[in-house]
């Protein structure tokens, strides 16, 4: 039985012949699962000076997420775990919450993205 194929190619890509998933916005070849990241929520949140904000995502598993910090001049900087850049801001994620920490002496605005994609199992 033939595999079920569903491909949506980028501009100027021959969807019939091309087999590089990077060239497709949707690539289903019936052989391998290439999941698209599905956005659950994207929000802006303010965290006070020397404070921690806990945001419940309610998924029950550890999801893919990204967190950014607003600095002066409209610049958004990506956050990671404990920072080596001495920015004083970082985040962690578990099955229930994203926890954003602001160890600086000033309130800071953060933007976070939570996806449905389970990154732990």
């Amino acid at each position, binding site marked *: 039985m033939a595999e079920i194929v*569903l491909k949506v190619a980028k501009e100027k890509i021959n969807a019939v012949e091309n087999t590089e998933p990077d060239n497709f*916005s*949707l690539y*289903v070849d*019936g052989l*391998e*699962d*290439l*999941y*698209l*990241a*599905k*956005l*659950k929520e*994207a929000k802006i949140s303010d965290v006070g000076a020397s404070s921690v904000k806990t945001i419940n995502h309610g998924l029950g598993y550890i999801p893919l997420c*990204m967190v*950014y910090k607003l*600095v002066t*001049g*409209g*610049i*958004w*900087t*990506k956050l*990671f*775990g404990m*920072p*080596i*850049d001495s*920015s004083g801001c970082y985040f962690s994620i578990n099955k229930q919450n994203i926890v954003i920490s602001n160890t600086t002496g000033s309130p800071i605005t953060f*933007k976070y*993205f939570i*996806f*449905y*994609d*389970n990154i732990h199992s």
Partner: protein
Amino acid sequence: MTTSTPKIAVAGLYRNVLTETDKNNLIFDSEDNTFKILIERNVTVILAASTNNQDFYFPHGLQFAPQVTAFAKETGKEQVFSPNSDDINLWGAKLGWTSTGVRFNSISSDSERVICNFNNTNGTTKTVDIKYYCFEAS
């Protein structure tokens, strides 16, 4: 008579698309925004010798500050390293690792540019290839 909202979904291998409720088992679900990569670009920078806090600017041409991420690779090294990380030399399980002296401090964006910041503690310049991604605004 009841009506339902039309949707398009594509399930993973061996999953029943009609009954699947776990979004982790759906390759695509029209109920959810799929996160889109707007820009995917390769650039090369040369880090000045013995200089920390070096900014490199890359115009993105978008009309807003996109969410961004990147991966860097030193010329002559095998591995990539991400922002908030040192590049490292691996010395095996017993001896561990040492920094090459190149550190990818951060990646940022504003409404005009992607900004990558590096340290280089070496006494010579270092060439670093960067692949950065700009994502959609939300």
